[in-house]
């Protein structure tokens, strides 16, 4: 029995292969739907995987176990402003948060775009006021020189640590350390250069920045007492949730908010947000891949159509095979193999097309794409199933033919 399967299968495979080669253009048109379907599944999934990885690396580049505290929104008179509008967070809040048990460290942040001048050069960049804990929270060490210390923050020293892009734009090839730059007409000594961080998920160049002590920022540049945000690093991933409730309780107390009033600040757990973004990217990928998979079904209908034509065209051959002793299942198998070979071939071409599309997307657009083996195997299996499913009816029709009538067919 095994021998029978083995040999008949081989012969059917060979015959299927020959039949398909005989009608090259027709076979190609038939499997075009499968090629497009599989190709677009592979391409969309590779884009999704790329996005997923980008989000993952963003999570890592944001710093570990990070929480961000933003000032609250105002809803006075029914007009809702966005987060970060109300001046409710102060540097003292940040210092108080630092003492909480679940919190490892924190950094009050205030950022604003300013023109930076060095000799004849000037460059508009993001000036960030931060605490001395900034490198630790953001997981962003200096490449050269030093970061300002807590003492320099307390004394509101005029020192600056500049990002790689800002350094290149202002200083070119000159080592900026020790030079004096002007921010908002205030002189600052460059004491360090941050290591290269690269682009974030939204395409912003994170290296295009100058970091100065938050106190200096508040007193000498912004002229305010409130901060845009407080970045907090929890002790561990599990602690982010505890830290979130501790911070909420502490700030409500510090801001004297009565029980029935809402918070005037927001605590954002960035790890959670990043995970949510990741899962929404996945959902989107699945959605796109499902739409692409629909074209696989359409391709399957194309296969069914051509197989029906093929069965009719080869009625005589079926008659001959029946006359020499082919059973129903032999004929059924022959045509199923043919439609499977057809769709599998479409699947293979589709995978090649998908990888090609995905690589050219990587090459010619900022989107990153990653082709993994999983979607390749799934689409191969899926296209095989499409071939068997849509090939079944024509094959069944062929197997039910009456030998006398089939032999008479011209």
């Amino acid at each position, binding site marked *: 029995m095994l021998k029978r399967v083995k040999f008949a299968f081989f012969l059917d495979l060979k*015959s299927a292969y020959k039949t398909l080669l005989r009608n090259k253009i027709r076979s190609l048109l038939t499997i075009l739907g499968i090629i497009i379907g599989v190709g677009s599944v592979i391409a969309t999934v590779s884009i999704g995987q790329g996005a997923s990885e980008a989000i993952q690396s963003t999570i890592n580049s944001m710093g570990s176990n990070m929480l961000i505290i933003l000032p609250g929104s105002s809803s006075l008179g029914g007009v809702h402003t966005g987060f970060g509008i109300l001046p409710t967070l102060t540097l003292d809040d940040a210092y108080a948060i630092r003492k909480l048990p679940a919190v490892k460290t924190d950094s009050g942040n205030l950022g604003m775009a300013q023109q930076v001048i060095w000799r004849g050069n000037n460059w508009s960049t993001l000036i960030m006021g931060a605490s001395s804990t900034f490198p630790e929270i953001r997981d962003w060490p200096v490449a050269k020189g030093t970061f300002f210390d807590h003492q320099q923050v307390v004394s509101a020293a005029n020192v600056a640590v500049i990002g790689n892009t800002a350094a290149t734009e202002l200083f070119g090839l000159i080592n900026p350390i020790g030079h004096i730059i002007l921010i908002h007409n205030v002189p600052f000594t460059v004491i360090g250069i941050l290591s290269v961080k690269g682009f974030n998920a939204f395409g912003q160049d994170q290296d295009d920045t100058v970091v100065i002590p938050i106190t200096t920022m508040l007193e000498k540049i912004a002229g305010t007492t409130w901060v845009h945000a407080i970045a907090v690093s929890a002790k561990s991933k599990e602690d982010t949730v505890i830290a979130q409730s501790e911070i909420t309780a502490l700030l409500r107390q510090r801001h004297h908010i009565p029980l029935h009033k809402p918070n005037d600040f927001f605590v954002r757990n960035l790890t959670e947000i990043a995970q949510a973004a990741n899962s929404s990217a996945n959902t989107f990928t699945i959605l796109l891949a499902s739409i692409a998979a629909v074209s696989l079904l359409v391709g399957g209908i194309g296969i069914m159509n051509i197989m029906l034509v093929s069965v009719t065209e080869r009625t*005589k051959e079926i008659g*001959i095979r029946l006359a*020499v002793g082919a059973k*129903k299942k032999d004929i059924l198998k022959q045509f199923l193999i043919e439609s499977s070979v057809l769709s599998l071939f479409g699947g293979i071409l589709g995978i090649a097309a998908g990888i090609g599309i995905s690589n050219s997307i990587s090459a010619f657009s900022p989107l990153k794409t990653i082709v993994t083996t999983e979607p390749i195997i799934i689409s191969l299996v899926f296209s095989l199933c499409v071939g068997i499913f849509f090939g079944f009816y024509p094959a069944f029709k062929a197997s039910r033919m009456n030998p006398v009538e089939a032999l008479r067919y011209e």
Partner: protein
Amino acid sequence: MNTDRDIRISAPLIRLENIGMIYKIGDISYEALKGINLIVENGEFVSVMGASGSGKSTLMNILGCLDRPTAGKYFLEGRDVSNLTSDELAEIRNKKIGFVFQGFNLIQRLSIVENVGLPLYYSGMHSKEATEMAMDALKLVDLADTENKFPNQISGGEQQRVAIARAVVNNAPIIMADEPTGNLDSVRGADVMRFFKKINEERGATIILVSHDKNIANYGKRLITVKDGAIISSTVIETKNVV
């Protein structure tokens, strides 16, 4: 068990008992065969003659187990085959019957040796053995050198000889030939008939030949004439030396 074997030994190769065939197309029914009784012994060479519409093709289809009669009984080697399923009939065609048709009926995509081996593939034989048997059958019709050619690369006479090789490849006791020389000129036709004679005489295969050509029918040893769905005569053909 013993009695069973006795029956098989004593039973004729083919016995038709009161075979009838009625085709129904809508409300109209057409009686193609009317109470046919026929016995064919092992090793016979029977020619069936009749005008078109006489029912000889229907008779061939039933004898070849391609179709089931609507009435009567058909015993093949003592076994009643008149009510078998289509897969059981396929099995019988595979083991017991070889076909040679007017239009050669080779599969164009398969090579000559694959065409010849086709019945063996469906009987579940292993590739190597099947190829050897197919080669033997090709040698029998003097076409061993065409094994890797395709049907469209050889002449009509050669194609029909390939069809004969396919019919005898599984050592079937019965060879059915339906107008085997109909598409051939007389020289090639005579060539093809020579091989039927050869397999009948050397291999002892029973041959049932349908033809409307008296010269071709005369290759047989017995002539059956069919008219209006009934056998009207069965005569022994005098052995003549037909070239």
